């Protein structure tokens, strides 16, 4: 909301307060100052100066050396190039230090002659451009006073009023609040108009007392619709409103002065009485901004006998019922509409106005009649008493509220006296009743409970005046704590392995679904879509993190990143069973690896990551767990597999389909993995006991084998498992060789070498024991299809 400081000053005396002080006042009243705009001359150092003498500059034809009386007791020498003045004229004199919009005047020498300031033209000091040369001030301008006092200047404050304080949405309301905080009186000439009114059953037909408890309308005849007087136009422009005509401007003025919205109908467009009724289902309404709306019975209309919709009550007038230049009689509406109805209509129709903004937050019912009276007065209409016709009745005044002093002092840490607390409430317009009860003014409908009063006291008292207390409590570790700790361990491991942690938006696009790697298959109905997405790019809740990483990788690749090693942890969302089990959330870890394994260097050739690099990251993430990939078909991706830790499936692995890699312009294979963070946490946090170190030496035996190139290594491992040799404690594959040319070994064969480690934990093995064990192992290997020993 915009507040003009000049306008506000008609309610209370703000002289002597700097704008920063006023801004702080608002801040600590709970009103955020979002902007301060100064209009007119800002600087105090631009004063009225009288030119007492002007002689030719000795070294410059176009300059004169003037002696200026700026009310300082002695003359000030200023070099000036203007021609439009004569000695004796009064002009703006900028003293050293005057800030002309960022340009600060100083003392200087011009062509060797001292110049202690500047004589200014109108536009130089922020006024509209006048005649060429200096701004000649009126002869009676007092020498030495700031020029700003001779011209209108104003400060516009852009304020953010919280929704609980509709009483602050006007200059009168804001003035009342500041007067309370400053402990200064309000200026009495601005007290509300009083008005007499008469109930009317004929003129106003009020059909919904719930949506509109109180409605008034005043017929004003012999109206001349014309331009508003200057003062009114100035008021409106000072808060950024465009003057339209005197009638509309007066209603706008009254709204921003009192907070009570008014509406003026052209009386000639209203047939018979005003009817305040709910819309019929599907009724059409064209607002004065020419937008068309289909209404529901929840919406309240101002209508007439003909049934025509004149206005959407409290929100916006209709296109045809408003005041125009040809209007001669008006019906002036001032009413109290219930907040929730206005709120619903405004939300549903996406129509909002200064009027609906106030009604939906709660206008002051007691302002209805004074606001009407003020408007009538401003229209210079002398109407007989009782011309304001009313229907319905004003809502009951707010119920008294009890202030619990014990709880108040506890809340504030005993930092305020009861007297001081009560004084604050009194200043805020509350009246102390018996038994700790307080009467609430009608403009503070938000005060209904003890805590509301306590809040007011706290706010005015200020948290600065409340002591600080430091307390720590012992709390047991929660499951969430444990999960967090596990996540941090995993994060740090991945970072140490050379991966960057990412954060992507959890709302993804439909077309990103090609990249998903869900841990359980998705059926129709398992994807969760938001109802009204901001764009198709963010339409569905991600069922998998991988798509976000693929998009991040793509963006980095476009920036010529050669090494893409990314991970992200976070929520994924899905339904299950084709939508039967709704809104399942779980935490996943996703990894993406593509491109160079290390940054480029002189010491090694660039090498793009292959499958086994990706697998190495998975293994290093969970040391001590046997990580394996078990091939499993998946849509849209290649090389798909389940990731296993021992026998447990902990995630899904794949390479993007080669087509997808080409489509996204990836030049290297893109490996992706999505892991179940819940399972990883259990693996990370599992308790364990150390294995004793071996006490006896072991022996190793190697075996070089040859087998079909398509025979998976898993067959060898399976055979070793079947050998079930107790002495075989570990083995490793230490060589793999293929020769596509077929020269060294047939092209369809591969040579593979394993080392087997034999050990007995209770004794040193004899050679024949090792030989026997190795023989058993080799026999088991011999059963692998197509395997021969070399």
């Amino acid at each position, binding site marked *: 909301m915009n507040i003009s400081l000049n306008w506000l000053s008609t309610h209370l005396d703000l002289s002597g307060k700097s704008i920063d002080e006023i801004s702080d006042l608002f801040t600590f009243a709970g009103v955020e100052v979002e902007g301060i705009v100064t209009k007119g001359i800002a600087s105090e150092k631009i004063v009225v100066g009288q030119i007492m003498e002007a002689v030719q500059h000795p070294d410059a034809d176009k300059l004169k050396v003037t002696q200026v009386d700026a009310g300082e007791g002695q003359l000030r020498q200023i070099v000036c190039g203007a021609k439009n003045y004569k000695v004796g004229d009064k002009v703006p004199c900028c003293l050293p230090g005057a800030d002309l919009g960022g340009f600060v005047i100083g003392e200087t020498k011009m062509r060797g002659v001292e110049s202690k300031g500047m004589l200014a033209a109108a536009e130089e000091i922020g006024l509209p451009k006048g005649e060429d040369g200096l701004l000649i001030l009126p002869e009676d301008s007092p020498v030495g006073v700031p020029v700003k006092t001779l011209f209108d200047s104003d400060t516009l404050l852009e304020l953010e009023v919280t929704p609980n304080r509709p009483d602050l949405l006007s200059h009168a309301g804001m003035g009342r609040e500041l007067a309370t905080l400053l402990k200064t009186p309000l200026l009495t000439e601005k007290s509300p108009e009083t008005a007499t009114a008469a109930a009317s059953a004929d003129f106003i037909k009020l059909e919904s007392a719930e949506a509109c408890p109180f409605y008034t309308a005043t017929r004003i005849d012999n109206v001349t619709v014309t331009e508003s007087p200057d003062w009114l136009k100035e008021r409106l422009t000072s808060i950024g409103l465009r003057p339209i005509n005197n009638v509309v401007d007066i209603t706008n003025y009254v709204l921003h002065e009192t907070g009570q919205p008014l509406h003026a109908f052209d009386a000639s467009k209203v047939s018979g009485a005003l009817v305040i009724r709910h819309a019929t289902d599907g009724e059409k309404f064209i607002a004065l901004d020419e937008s068309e709306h289909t209404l529901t019975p929840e919406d309240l209309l101002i209508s007439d006998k003909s049934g025509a919709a004149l206005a959407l009550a409290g929100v916006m007038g209709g296109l045809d019922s408003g005041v125009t230049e040809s209007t001669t009689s008006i019906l002036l509406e001032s009413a109290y509409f219930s907040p929730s109805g206005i709120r619903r209509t405004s939300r549903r129709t996406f129509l909002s106005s200064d009027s609906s903004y106030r009604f939906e937050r709660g206008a002051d019912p007691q302002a209805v009649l004074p606001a009407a009276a003020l408007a009538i007065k401003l229209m210079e209409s002398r109407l007989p008493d009782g011309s304001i016709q009313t229907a319905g009745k004003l809502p009951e005044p707010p119920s008294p509220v009890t202030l619990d002093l014990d709880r108040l002092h506890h809340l504030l840490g005993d930092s305020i006296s009861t007297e001081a607390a009560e004084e604050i409430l009194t200043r805020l317009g509350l009246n102390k009743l018996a038994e700790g009860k307080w009467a609430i003014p009608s403009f503070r409908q938000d005060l209904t409970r003890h805590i509301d009063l306590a809040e007011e006291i706290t706010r005015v008292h200020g948290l600065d005046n409340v002591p600080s207390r430091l307390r720590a409590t012992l709390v047991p570790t929660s499951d969430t704590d444990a999960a967090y700790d596990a996540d941090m361990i995993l994060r740090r491991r991945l*970072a140490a392995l050379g991966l960057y942690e990412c954060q992507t938006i959890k709302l993804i696009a439909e077309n990103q679904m090609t990249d998903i790697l869900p841990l359980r298959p998705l059926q129709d109905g398992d994807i969760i879509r938001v109802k009204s997405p901001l764009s198709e790019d963010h339409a569905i809740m991600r069922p998998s993190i991988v798509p976000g990483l693929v998009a991040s990788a793509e963006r980095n690749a476009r920036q010529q990143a050669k090494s893409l090693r990314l991970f992200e942890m976070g929520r994924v969302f899905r339904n299950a069973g084709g939508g039967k089990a709704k809104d399942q959330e779980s935490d996943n870890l996703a990894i993406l690896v593509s491109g160079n394994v290390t940054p480029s*260097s002189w010491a090694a050739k660039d090498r793009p990551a292959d499958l086994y690099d990706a697998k190495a990251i998975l293994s290093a993430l969970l040391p001590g767990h046997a990580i394996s990939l078990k091939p499993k078909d998946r849509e849209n991706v290649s090389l798909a597999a389940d990731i296993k830790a021992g026998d447990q499936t902990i995630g899904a692995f794949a390479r993007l389909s080669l087509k997808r890699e080409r489509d996204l312009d990836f030049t290297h294979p893109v490996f992706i993995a999505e892991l179940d963070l819940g399972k990883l946490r259990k693996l990370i946090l599992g308790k364990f006991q150390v294995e004793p170190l071996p006490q006896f030496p072991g022996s190793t035996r190697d075996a070089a084998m040859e087998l079909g190139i398509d025979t998976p290594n898993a067959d060898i491992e399976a055979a070793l498992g079947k050998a079930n040799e107790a002495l075989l404690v570990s083995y490793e594959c230490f060589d793999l060789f293929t020769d596509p040319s077929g020269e060294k070994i047939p092209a369809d064969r591969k040579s593979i070498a394993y080392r087997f480690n034999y050990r007995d934990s209770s004794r040193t093995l004899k050679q024949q024991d090792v030989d026997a064990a190795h023989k058993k192992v080799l026999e088991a290997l011999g059963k692998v299809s197509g395997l021969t020993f070399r």
Partner: protein
Amino acid sequence: MDANRLQLNPSNGPLYAGIPTIVTYNGSNFANLVPLKYKYPLLFASIRVHSRLIIQNEGALFLEWQNRHQTKLLPRPLLSAIPLPPPMNEQIASIQSQALELIATATDERSLDDARVASIGKKGTLSLAGALIKDIPNEEKAAFGQSLNAARTAITSAIDEKQAALQEVADKAALSGIDLTLPARALPTGGLHPLTLIRDEAIQILRRMGFALAEGPEIEDEYHCFDALNTPADHPARNEKDTFYFNSGKLLRTHTSSVQIRTMETAAPPIRIIAPGSAYRRDEIDATHLSVFNQLEGLFVDTDVTLPDLKGTLEYFFHEMFGTSTEVRFRPHFFPFTEPSFEIDVKLQIKGQPPRWIEVAGCGMVDPAVFESINATRKDNALDPTKITGFAFGMGLDRLAMIRWGIRDIRLLIENDTRFLSQFA
């Protein structure tokens, strides 16, 4: 004489290594001279296994051999054909000088070791000479022993010196030609996301004060996101323009405050939790807005929780976060679920700007209406609003990260450009 002739082939002149020499007696072979390894004049030779060549100090040569445990001495005249070696002291001197020369000319460990073996090795020239001591008359043994020891000492120390010299050269060579200024080999670098870093920092601070972590769903119902938080049904936030809804009627939580409700529904006071998590608002993504952002929620509910607790806790938090001298202020504000409510500003200096107040969090005392609606759900009075009080706070982690690191555009936090991320590695 001819009948008893001992003959060394070749018969005249010193014997040389590498030339197999057969010893014949009366024309028949009775021994092989071990071919010597080195190219210098044969001074002594040993006859393999059974025989020994003995040189007497006067220079006469006897050959003694053992055969089937018998020792026979050849008659002296038979040996006259063999040239007599020089006297013993000369021989030792000669051994020493040849050994020293070999040592001096050694160029590496291996040739030095060869020189050692050739002189003082088990079968080296000096060792073989030493073996003769038992055949030397007693009165000369001492002198012979001394000259032997002197030679051995000289050779050993020459070897040691040479070895040290060779090592020095090798060590120098091992370090020469290494360019310290060449760039490093490459290792991949990785790092945590700035949001993780700032979140972890916040969590560490709050854990020190005894807050435990809590969480809740991001797809929330209106009750937990709004109703229970005292937000009326027609509150401005509750519409499809500002909040993401689903056809099911559920929504994406607009704040992590819903976790307060979830926690209080099951736990009993004292409750002291923090809940970091995502929240969603239907904002177009631009330099200052994200539709998905990150918050950290805090809640302390007990029988004696007051504004001084709220103030002390949050002052401590922001002093830890931004430095103990950072000014913190509490501005009155409005939230439906707290009363009184405040926004918290800290006064910070951003590079190149004068210090200014920057909003960092919202907080307040839990509104009794929140306790009442939870009690209604719990069907008890565990959170009796006449006895239980509490404070809650919430802060935007994205915003804290932006303030901490001077990030101007919030989109950097979701674009994952590695040039950005690597700055946090």
